[in-house]
């Protein structure tokens, strides 16, 4: 087999694709060549996989060795890293720099240096011995810990790592070709975009190593040292201390100790990870301005754009604007918009007023007295355009703004359906979707069917199957011939 054979194979297959009939002898030769040439075999395999995808997606097979270069490259590296995993956990400061120096990156495109920054901190969060807040750089080797709080850090503008309470992690960033987070205790959630070619991302505990490309997963270390990995999206490779490894595809869970035990994601697991997942979705960017929220008294629960974010004091990045709400039992909740104008840090302290009776929901009064400069139709148009552009976070903020600023308008009602679909689809936040669909149903309107169908899908994603079943039965009674009804029946049949 020569390069000329491959050139001929390419030319002939291109001609065939363009509709030309090939002589039989050429067809025979094409098949023979593909059997001897791996590259051409892969290409053939790609097209046969594509054909199989039509109506039978479950029969798709991944072309052999045909993952992205990052992935393959990372896989090659992983084999080199395994032997050092445990030693590096124990003696990170001594071993890691030497190890990293000794590795030569064969990457065709040298990755740029990696930096990390605190994106969000609520309650007691420390970097080393000092209190941490949004905007602070996370130095290599510094311990990032949450005692009675929550925190997220952004790494290389493409990785968000959120720590649960009572957790501690350390970063290794010396080598731009790999980012390693050492989880000493507690639990973390990772949301990871595709990494540039030549860079891999690893989470290591005393007993496990997790490697991922473009995915969302959580890793927790139990009191007995066992590691629990939950994969919500994408694929990861998990490796145990005894070098046993396993590839996971979402949704799945793996218990890692001496061995790896892979199980389906249990009911309720999503709910347990929901808070960290929401945090990691909301804390995706270091663009905008650092915002420090405080309250008197301290310790108020804070929601940002309807997502619970922890307690005051709380610091985070706000891109353009965000709706914040603070509540504390026995006090009147307060809410307001934080608008970023010039990118400078914003510090807001809210004084909570004690009430004799339990506070009522003040969301309807969220923007009372606020100057309104835009129309609901304009806001809706902006939101739709943002969605079309793929800027889902900004789009969700506009939908929520519509709802709070123009609560009686048709646009606001429609925005709740759109927001629900967006949260279910693009942002994968079923709890927020459920809230949006429910908000619509509380007022009611011509899109009730869509709202009810949305609620059912959100409940399923939240593993609240009993409620979903009940609502599904009601839906099928009320809309028996609708397309969503057919979808629900199919789902029931598949179960």
């Amino acid at each position: 087999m020569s390069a000329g054979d491959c050139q001929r194979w390419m030319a002939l297959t291109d001609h065939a694709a363009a509709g030309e009939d090939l002589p039989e002898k050429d067809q025979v030769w094409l098949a023979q060549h593909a059997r001897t040439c791996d590259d051409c075999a892969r290409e053939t395999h790609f097209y046969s996989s594509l054909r199989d995808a039509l109506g039978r997606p479950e029969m798709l097979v991944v072309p052999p060795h045909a993952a992205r270069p990052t992935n393959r490259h990372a896989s090659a590296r992983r084999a080199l890293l395994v032997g050092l995993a445990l030693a590096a956990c124990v003696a990170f400061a001594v071993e890691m720099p030497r190890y990293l120096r000794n590795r030569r990156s064969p990457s065709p495109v040298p990755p740029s240096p990696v930096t990390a920054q605190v994106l969000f901190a609520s309650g007691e969060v420390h970097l080393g011995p000092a209190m941490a807040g949004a905007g602070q750089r996370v130095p290599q080797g510094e311990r990032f810990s949450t005692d009675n709080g929550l925190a997220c850090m952004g790494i290389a503008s493409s990785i968000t790592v959120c720590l649960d309470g009572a957790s501690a992690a350390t970063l290794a960033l010396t080598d731009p070709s790999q980012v390693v987070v050492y989880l000493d205790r507690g639990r973390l959630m990772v949301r990871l975009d595709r990494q540039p070619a030549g860079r891999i991302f690893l989470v290591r505990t005393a007993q496990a190593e997790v490697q991922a490309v473009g995915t969302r997963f959580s890793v927790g270390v139990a009191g007995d040292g066992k590691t629990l990995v939950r994969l919500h999206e994408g694929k990861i490779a998990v490796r145990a201390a005894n070098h046993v490894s396993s590839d996971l595809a979402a949704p799945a869970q793996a218990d890692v100790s001496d061995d790896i035990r892979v199980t389906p994601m249990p009911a309720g697991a999503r709910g347990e990870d929901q808070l960290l997942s929401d945090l990691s979705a909301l804390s995706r960017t270091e663009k905008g301005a650092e915002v420090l929220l405080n309250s008197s008294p301290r310790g108020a629960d804070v929601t940002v754009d309807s997502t619970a974010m922890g307690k005051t004091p709380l610091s985070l990045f706000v891109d353009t604007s965000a709706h914040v709400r603070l509540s504390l039992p026995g006090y009147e909740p307060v809410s307001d918009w934080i608008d970023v104008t010039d990118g400078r840090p914003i510090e807001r302290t809210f004084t909570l007023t004690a009430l004799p009776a339990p506070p009522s929901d003040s969301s309807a009064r969220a923007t009372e007295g606020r100057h309104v400069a835009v129309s609901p139709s304009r806001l809706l148009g902006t939101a739709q355009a943002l969605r079309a552009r793929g800027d889902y976070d900004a789009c969700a903020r506009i939908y929520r703004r519509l709802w709070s600023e123009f609560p009686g308008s048709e646009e606001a009602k429609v925005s709740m359906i759109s927001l629900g679909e967006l949260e279910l689809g693009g942002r994968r936040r079923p709890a927020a979707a459920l809230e949006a669909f429910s908000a619509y149903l509380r007022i009611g309107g011509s899109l009730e069917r869509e709202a009810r169908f949305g609620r059912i899908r959100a409940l399923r994603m939240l593993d609240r199957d009993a409620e979903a079943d009940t609502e599904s039965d009601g839906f099928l009674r009320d809309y028996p011939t609708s397309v969503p009804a057919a979808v629900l029946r199919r789902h029931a049949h598949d179960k």
Partner: protein
Amino acid sequence: MAVRNEKEALSLADQAAAGDRSAQRQLVDRLHRRVQSIALSILGNALDAEDTTQVILMEILKSVGGFRGDNLFAWSDRIAVRTAIRHARQRRIRGLRFQSTEDIDNLPLSSDSFDPSEPDLSRDLRDYLTQLPEARRAALVLRHMMDFSIDEIAELTEVSPNTVKDRLLHARQQLRKLIRRDRLFDPSRGTP
């Protein structure tokens, strides 16, 4: 689940067209996954594909009276392709309000909005498809996934056959580069 023969397909279509809810349900059940694959492959974006799948199924139910019993899948495929392409165009026009300097024909789709947990297509296969500009991807999918002829693709996408060939050739060359490039990083062959 395949429609077993033309007679059965025609009978089902007639019943659905006459408003038989059970027949409509059966029709949707039979076509849903196929339509979903088509929408996903052409649009590339899971969120848009989900919306478009619903629209396509509604279109099919509305048009089912026009089905004359030759091949149900071939008939529904054309509706699915036309609708998906129309939605892709609408999305592109909306996107251009923000990105007017982009070359329409070469505007690649972002793959950020893909949900890797969805079971519909292999993530790796989808990864390759999303590397292609929208027009080239549509040509590739119609030719290699759905076996349409060049002339049929030209008709469906409303361009000349030569444009289809050009898009197809470029899509194949781009994919070829990606597939061969990935092999360079195959650990079984050693790093370059």
